[in-house]
């Protein structure tokens, strides 16, 4: 029996993973540790005066009703963004998977938006739907709709979800298309011969076989909605009107960077980190059971 045929030296495998480990340590664990330390401190923006305040930053955070509103809002936004962009991307992928003339062109065009940075997405949509700058908002107003996301919180929230979901569609589309093309055609043919109609074929054959992709994308999308949407929020609404588009990450940014309140901002980051760890844990513990690889 030979177990370790490749690595003769004991040190070599460690040496080979060392660069990767170093990157993870420097770019993930070190900043995470810094955030934890910072969350116990009270410090001015310049770092000139520092005092250790134990859990004060956390206590203040949990006393703030606005924080819980932001938690609920973030979960709502995340699910709305994930579900809408996933379902729309799946629809597009199924359609683009058909043998069509020029399907490569459609596919390429559908992938494009992913290359756009979140703040640019925000600006793009602002040019279409800003109450005074927007091209579409003129038509909306002409049609008698009182379109004003500057004052209507629901409209503003809808706008953020729309822009954030739009950007993610391309990414999801890419994975769905790859997933669809990996399903052997013979399975469909067998189902078709058994007399299953397209809708039934989709729900009983395609969907289960795509489930690993869907699960992976669900995790990625929720993480995206949690962390990556703040650029969109910052350019589109700055959290307004009122606080109706302040999410947890945006609050971290505005308290820490705009407000110079690094302690509270760090405490929020730590809470956010724990939340995402728990959320991902739940997904892998419970949702993954429904997934057939």
């Amino acid at each position, binding site marked *: 029996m030979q177990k370790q045929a490749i690595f003769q030296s004991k040190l070599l495998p460690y040496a080979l993973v060392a660069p990767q480990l170093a990157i993870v340590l420097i770019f993930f664990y070190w900043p995470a540790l810094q955030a934890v330390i910072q969350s116990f401190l*009270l*410090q*001015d*923006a*310049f*770092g*000139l*005066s520092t005092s250790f305040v134990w859990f004060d930053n956390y206590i203040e955070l949990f006393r703030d009703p606005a924080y819980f509103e932001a938690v609920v809002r973030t979960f709502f936004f995340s699910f709305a963004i994930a579900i809408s962009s996933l379902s729309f991307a799946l629809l597009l992928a199924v359609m683009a998977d058909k043998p069509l003339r020029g399907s490569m062109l459609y596919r390429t065009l559908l992938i494009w938006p992913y290359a756009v940075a979140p703040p640019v997405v925000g600006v793009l949509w*602002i040019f279409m739907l*800003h109450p*005074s*700058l927007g091209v579409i908002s003129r038509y909306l*107003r002409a049609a008698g709709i009182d379109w*004003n996301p*500057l*004052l*209507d*919180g629901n409209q503003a929230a809808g706008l953020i979800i729309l822009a954030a979901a739009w950007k993610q569609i391309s990414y999801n589309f890419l994975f769905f298309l790859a997933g669809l093309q990996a399903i052997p055609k013979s399975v469909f043919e067998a189902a078709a011969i058994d007399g299953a109609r397209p809708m039934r074929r989709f729900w009983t054959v395609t969907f289960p076989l795509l489930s690993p992709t869907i699960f992976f994308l669900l995790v990625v999308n929720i993480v995206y909605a949690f962390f990556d949407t703040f650029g969109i929020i910052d350019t589109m609404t*700055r*959290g*307004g*009107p*009122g*606080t109706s588009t302040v999410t947890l990450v945006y609050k971290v940014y*505005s*308290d820490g*960077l*705009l*407000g*110079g*309140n690094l302690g*509270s901002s760090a405490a929020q980051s730590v809470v956010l980190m724990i939340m995402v760890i728990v959320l991902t844990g739940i997904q892998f513990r419970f949702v993954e059971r429904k997934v057939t690889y």
Partner: protein
Amino acid sequence: MALRHFGAAAAVALTVGLGASPALAVTEIQWWHAMTGANNDVIVKLANDFNASQTDYKVIPTYKGNYPDTMNAGIAAFRAGNAPHIMQVFEVGTATMMAATGAVKPVYKLMAETGEKFDPKNYLPAITGYYSTSKGEMLSFPFNSSSTVMWVNLDELKKANVEIPKTWPEVFEAGKKLKAAGHDTCGFSGSWVTWVNLEQLSAWHNTPLSSKANGLDGFDTVLEFNGPLQVKHLENLVELQKTKVYDYAGRTNTGEGRFTSGECPIYLTSSAFFGNVKAQAKFNFTAVPMPYYPDVKGAPQNSIIGGASLWVMGGKPADDYKGVAKFLTFLSDTDRQVYIHKASGYLPITKAAYAKAKEEGFYKDQPYLETPLLELTNKEPTENSRGLRLGNMVQLRDVWSEEIEQALAGKKTAKQALDAAVERGNTMLRQFEKTAVK
């Protein structure tokens, strides 16, 4: 070896060839700023002119993004130990900079230590008051200053047969008439909702925004802008928002296009909007002083400034400071101030420059360019109109905007919204007080 020699020789040849001053003995002075477009050109020209005027120092201007970005970049650089020499900080960052004793070098100290000629009396008090201690010690050097004015579309007013309004009730009436005349989405509006409708409104009516001379006399200041004047003003706006005689245009200046496009014929925003209006408006326009409530005794008082000032960062070698001081003296020169004033539309900071611009007839064709100066110098500043110095001002404004938006959306009454804005703001001020260096 030979190659390295060649490289050095080439570098020398290049330097000489480009006619630059000898590389030795030139002290570099880093200047971080947030100016774009035409104003960026002004900055580059000022730096180039200064560099050409002497051989000992070289000012290097660097664009670091918008105001908050520039400030954050400076703070991050300071924490990392390589702050620039000069940092342009917008007026709302004043308290944060001031609280950072040790991180900044007050301008009056810098000038005294380096022996530069410097008399704070030469500068317009309405401008320097904002950046000085209550003892009159200038902490930062005013660079670009503006104030709130009311921009008016003369053509549309004429069409609707409306006189230029002077008081708030007249503005409301004008808005209604303009709406009736076809401006059904916006009779009047404004940018920077808290600056115009809380900060400037309070100063213009000699009413406190917060205790301790609006924070100038100490960080233990308490917000007081939920008084009858501010509540009444917000109530008026809420009422007019319902019919769109007034239409909210956002927290920052993204709504300014509504004026230049002709949608809103009356628009309150910064006097620094001039450049855009001139470039884009296809109608006759002017800028007049902010309106006031005639039933408030003593109104109008004087307005307060917006814009930015230059902060000198601490912990640099003495020789660098000599250069910085020379550069500030260079900027204070009368002709140079007149140039900045004309090229950027920002206000001149010295009395002599203002007098000279006047003498040259600069305001004859464009009298509205003098409006912000007339507002600032309308009366001798009082405790309530000298300026503001509130910590965490950027975020404070966001919190106030949130509450104003709730009132305008009809979710809270004006009184409830301002009470909440005061309460939430006070919490943030106490937080700031805790961290401020004593």
